[in-house]
């Protein structure tokens, strides 16, 4: 189980949860697991082709998966996954 931290802008899509425990040994399986449970997240996180949207950053233990192996980045038990969209407010 890894812990996925949900930013507040996405929380309405997951019933308000701040974080979720999700099974999966890669970012792909973790994201798919999330979307299965909360289909509304799908349109936010993934493109029609099933890739990660470029405006949502995904970090595993503080590292951007774009510079690891993208969706194929391995996720181990107790890893911290963080979804991070840009925010503009000032």
């Amino acid at each position, binding site marked *: 189980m890894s812990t996925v931290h949900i*930013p*507040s*802008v*996405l929380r309405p899509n997951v019933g308000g949860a701040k974080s979720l425990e999700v099974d999966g040994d890669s970012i792909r399986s973790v994201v798919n697991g999330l979307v299965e449970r909360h289909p509304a997240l799908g349109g*936010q996180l993934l493109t029609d082709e099933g890739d990660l*949207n*470029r*405006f*949502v*950053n995904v*970090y595993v233990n*503080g*590292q*951007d998966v*774009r*510079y690891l192996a993208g969706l194929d980045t391995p996720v181990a038990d107790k890893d911290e996954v*963080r979804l*991070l*969209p*840009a*925010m*503009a*407010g*000032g």
Partner: protein
Amino acid sequence: MPKSYADLLREARAQIREVTPQEVDALPADAATIVDVREASEWEQGHIPGAHHVSKSYIEQQIEAAAPDRDAQVILYCAGGVRSLFAAQTLAEMGYSDVASMSGGFQGWKGAGLEFETPVVLSSEQKQRYSRHLLIPEVGSAGQKQLLESKALLIGAGGLGSPAALYLAAAGVGTIGLVDFDVVDISNLQRQIIHTTDRVGQRKVESARISINALNPDITVVEHEEMLTADNVARLIDGYDVILDGTDTFETRYVLNDAAVAAGIPVVHASVFRFEGQLTTFVPYEGPCYRCLYPTPPPPELAPGCSVAGVLGVVPGILGLLQTNEALKVLLGIGTTLAGRLLLFDALESEFTELQLRRDPACPVCSDAAVEARKAGRPLDVATVGADAPFLMTTTGLAGSVSPEARA
């Protein structure tokens, strides 16, 4: 048996070794601790490079800080070579084993055509105002002078810009530029503490200038009452040493990023949403830029601004001060900035999280290829952002766009 001045001088000369300015100049670096024992007003007119200043009247109290090793060579000098002889006697009494006095003093040094430096001189009012900075070795009078000569540009005199402008002014950052086209609205005052109730309706840049100069009249405030756009950005940022990005639209953030990277100016970035904030420092070519972090802007429903989503007032306050801390470090060249790190703040949990950022080797703005393309006059294509992009959402969902006047 009373002694005359001539008697005392003769005794000092007999006891203390004297060296010439040329001999002192020829010493290898670190061979001796050189101490200027003149008064502060004389020191400020110029001194030997690398010398410590310990006025003769404080020599017993302060010499141990300047020269902790009693067996190391210490050379004292004054204006003409007399006061330093008597001060050297005191050091000998205190157990310093290798003390010398420079004959001819600083006049002899200058007369021999040797190099000297003139220290930074702050006015007595400035010495009082910035005394807590002057006490910190990492700032001191040289750092304070640096701040006074620095220019910081704030994009937005709002939630982030308010605390930043006030603390930059308090710190003595000599020139503060403000870019904001808005007027003060009463709904701003829940967090935009640089403005006041009696200035509702006034131009924000003017209102901010009044508060800045009330706090520190030395600060030059440059009012840029216009919206930052691709057409004016190069002119607006020209000549500034650091930029604090406190806007609330993606369009402005990308336009600013692209121009600041091209101009080589560091941008301290912060953004806020309800209880959360993000902060980093973009140092061109040393760390990632905004487009490396977020290659494309999110769709409107994922990125509401404060005016539609709301924000806890202290969140921009906290983030604005962290921005100021970054800006001061950039200006002073001290410490470690957040270049390459993104700091997240969650006010509800009182939690800070740090994420590692990287430069995107394919970045259309800061990659080597992008730099080459700019030099060749053919900048790479970048994703463009619609002006109303962040303003299409209310707390309940998609809604109409918000007029510029309602942006805050």
